[in-house]
């Protein structure tokens, strides 16, 4: 084995210039693929952290059957009852003791008003303590830090005596609200009854702007009219551009009070970052079925519960796969080209080896090993170029606009070890195969012909 390797190494050295050119093609191809995978990895992590933790999608979420599509149409029918909530939580806890959080949430529409103007919002009610854990999750600060940077004010978990509400910057702007209630303010500053409620008066609008109080109004699950007072305690970003016009977040109990219900839209389960969601969803589905609970489990990669993640990543994966296929084809044919020339030039050498008693398989293996060696030698250089480029790009702090995302995100190229190994194995496999294919034909020629062949 070592003799053959030494021989392959020596042969590579004999055509150093040509092999250098081929090697540079492999090196650049490998570096390009690594960088592309690094970019895709970064985007995927951003979308994953944003959707699972900041948009409360969860690793897994449990709905009523068809609840994803119909909970807004018939909220009462498609809400989880308190009994279902308790049982599901219990099952989740027992089945996934490693979980990072389990939370109930309620979603719906509401009007938010400042006394003069109302604005429709898509409102989410979430558990205060869970919200605190989600916002402070390590992956959020690491991969979606830009969205945390867009937050102002406090979290909803920091208030006990009032109904806190977070609204997006745009909702606040549409309502003409600039005041954020701080945790240190004790009493709610109300407009005095002696003040003139004149919505056409600009001074009154300025007064409203300096007041964090808003009113939430909605139809209850029983189709009655309901309203609650709330205090804006912060501005936040949903991360999704299309939601920025109309998103709001309140504690679950406040929203349940507004809708006059004890039901919930879904229960989300937050599993450790690298947990594969599909098998986990399968396990939970089985467990719910065994407990006679007619509920549906979804995971965050599903189009129905996380359309932005699924749609965007789908496009990125299609483009990347297409590029990968083309790049592999180009590298394969480039290496085959070089190998063919090399084999043709060395026809007499092959003839001599055959005359000395080498078997066809031995000669083919020798060329395959030459190809393998060429591929293997290229990988560290490709990795180095990719690493160096990623270092330069990452330190340049380039901002990138992701379609559909409300804020610019930093371009971070993360070299993914698994992708590196898979792509490396693929390229080495390709070079080995090229050596093998090109030498098979040559070794099949009659010995006399091989010995008589010319260089050109």
């Amino acid at each position: 084995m070592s003799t053959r390797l030494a021989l392959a190494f020596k042969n590579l050295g004999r055509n150093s210039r040509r092999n250098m050119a081929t090697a540079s093609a492999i090196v650049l191809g490998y570096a390009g693929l690594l960088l592309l995978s690094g970019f895709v990895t970064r985007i995927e992590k951003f979308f994953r952290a944003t959707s699972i933790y900041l948009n409360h999608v969860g690793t897994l979420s449990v709905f009523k059957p068809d609840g994803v599509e119909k909970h807004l149409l018939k909220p009462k029918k498609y809400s989880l009852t308190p009994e279902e909530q308790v049982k599901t939580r219990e099952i989740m806890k027992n089945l996934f003791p490693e979980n990072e959080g389990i939370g109930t949430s309620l979603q719906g529409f509401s009007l938010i008003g400042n006394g003069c103007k109302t604005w429709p919002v898509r409102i989410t009610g979430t558990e205060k303590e869970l919200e605190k854990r989600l916002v402070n999750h390590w992956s959020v600060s690491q991969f979606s830090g830009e969205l945390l940077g867009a937050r102002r004010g406090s979290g909803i978990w920091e208030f006990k005596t009032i109904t806190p509400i977070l609204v997006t910057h745009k909702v606040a702007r549409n309502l003409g609200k600039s005041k954020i209630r701080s945790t240190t303010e004790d009493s709610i500053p109300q407009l005095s009854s002696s003040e003139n409620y004149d919505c056409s008066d600009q001074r009154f609008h300025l007064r409203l702007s300096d007041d964090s109080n808003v009113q939430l109004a909605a139809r209850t699950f029983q189709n009655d009219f309901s309203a609650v007072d709330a205090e804006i305690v912060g501005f936040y970003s949903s991360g999704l551009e299309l939601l920025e016009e109309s998103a709001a977040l309140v504690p679950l109990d406040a929203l349940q009070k507004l809708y006059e219900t004890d039901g919930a839209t879904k229960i989300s389960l937050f599993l450790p970052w690298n947990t594969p969601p599909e098998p986990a969803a399968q396990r939970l589905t089985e467990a719910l079925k065994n407990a006679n609970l007619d509920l549906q489990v979804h995971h965050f990669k599903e189009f129905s519960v996380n359309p932005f993640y699924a749609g965007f990543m789908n496009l990125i994966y299609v483009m990347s796969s297409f590029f990968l296929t083309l790049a592999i084809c180009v590298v394969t044919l480039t290496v085959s080209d070089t190998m063919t020339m090399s084999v043709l030039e060395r026809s007499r050498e092959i003839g001599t080896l055959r005359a000395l008693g080498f078997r066809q398989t031995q000669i083919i293996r020798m060329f395959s090993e030459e190809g393998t060696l060429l591929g293997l030698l290229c990988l560290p250089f490709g990795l180095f170029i990719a690493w160096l480029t990623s270092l330069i790009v990452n330190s340049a702090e380039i901002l990138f606009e992701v379609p559909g995302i409300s804020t610019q995100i930093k371009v971070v190229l993360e070299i993914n070890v698994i992708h590196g190994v898979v792509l490396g194995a693929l390229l080495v496999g390709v070079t080995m195969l090229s050596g093998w294919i090109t030498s098979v034909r040559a070794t099949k020629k009659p010995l006399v012909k091989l010995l008589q062949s010319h260089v050109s």
Partner: protein
Amino acid sequence: MSSLKMGIRNTLSNWRHSLGSILSVAIGFSALTLFNGYISVVQDMYEDNYRQRSMFGDVMIEKSENGKEIDFEESRINPAEQNFIANFLDENKDLLDEYVRFLIISGLANNGKTSSIFWGFGYDFEKGRKLREPTWVWNSKAGKPLDQQTSDSVMLGQDIGDTFGCVIEKKERLLTKVGGYEPLDRPFKCERDKLQLSVTTESGQINAMNVKVGALGGVGLRGIDSWYLMMSLDRAQQLFDTQDISHMRVRLKDAKMFDTFVKRFNKEAREKNIELRAFDWRDHVIARVYKRTMGLFLMFRNLVTAVILTISGMSVLNAMVKSINERRREIGTLRSLGFKQTRITRIFSTEGVVIGVIGSILGSIFCIISSIILNKLEFIYFAGFLSDPVPFVIGLVPNLYLLSLVILCGIAATTAFFASFRAVKSSIPALLTSV
């Protein structure tokens, strides 16, 4: 000319030497053209979705402040300003195909059981149809387009339609290969046909109006279709108790007239002290998803092109160096016959171009065949923010083929030049005695 003749003759007579280079060019050409062909189709889909389906046309006219952009939702063009625009458009009929007035609407829709936020536009139905020509005249997935309905009808985006329990009776893939829907009145059913739209007027009053769900469609962009609602401009103005519009969209007879139109309009508005500006819709905040998606495609395209060209370039260089090394005696003979060094490098560069052309022709044949096969397979997938699944299609774009040909011929000629440059510098005896 004689260099060209010699280049062609040399390529043909040394075809075995040139084969490697030709193959490398063909491979590079195929990879480049297939990938860019795919990207161009996806780009066209997005462009089509905005320009025709969403009726953006070519130019937008919006309110401005000191000639600068203002928040688009604050933009209100009053009747006097509308008259100014109408007069201007009338005077510039030669540039114009059609123009449509739009009013941005938002509020809460309710069917008696369910509420949902809506956001969308009130627009001139008839004129809007013209802006959707030719692909999206029929823009409804179910029901008829609004221009074929009464003015109290609204079109809902598919997702907000789901919220109100609107179901298309027969589920099928509607998008045709060239974009657009088959012009068929597909039946649909909603939980309740009527909706009540509640909005806040500019004066802060709550106003409401009953409308009929006439069609399901939207703009085909995920997220937007969750709130999207379109209605007639008259009814929208009635609902918001206003005569104003938010903006105007103009389709030009020829998109190349964009600069002329915009300059003329902005100049006249400035001269008459009217705070309006005309601009490319792609620069509007509503089209941000489009712009960012295009940016992403551009980045992908550049990265892929750079990698493919580098690999192909290296491969061609490799093959060229080998070919020239094997023809050192030929170079020596030419030199001894009195050929100048520059002439010989020119011959080899021309040979590079010929190799580039032949390789590109082979690549084109491969690309056309593989594109036809792949397009026939109709692999369906979701392309980012487009809400309808689309087929995986590789575009056959002649300009792209031409561009790839030029780039690859350039690479082949440059590599041939560099590969021959060193060889011709050797002494004639060394060249003639080389093995």
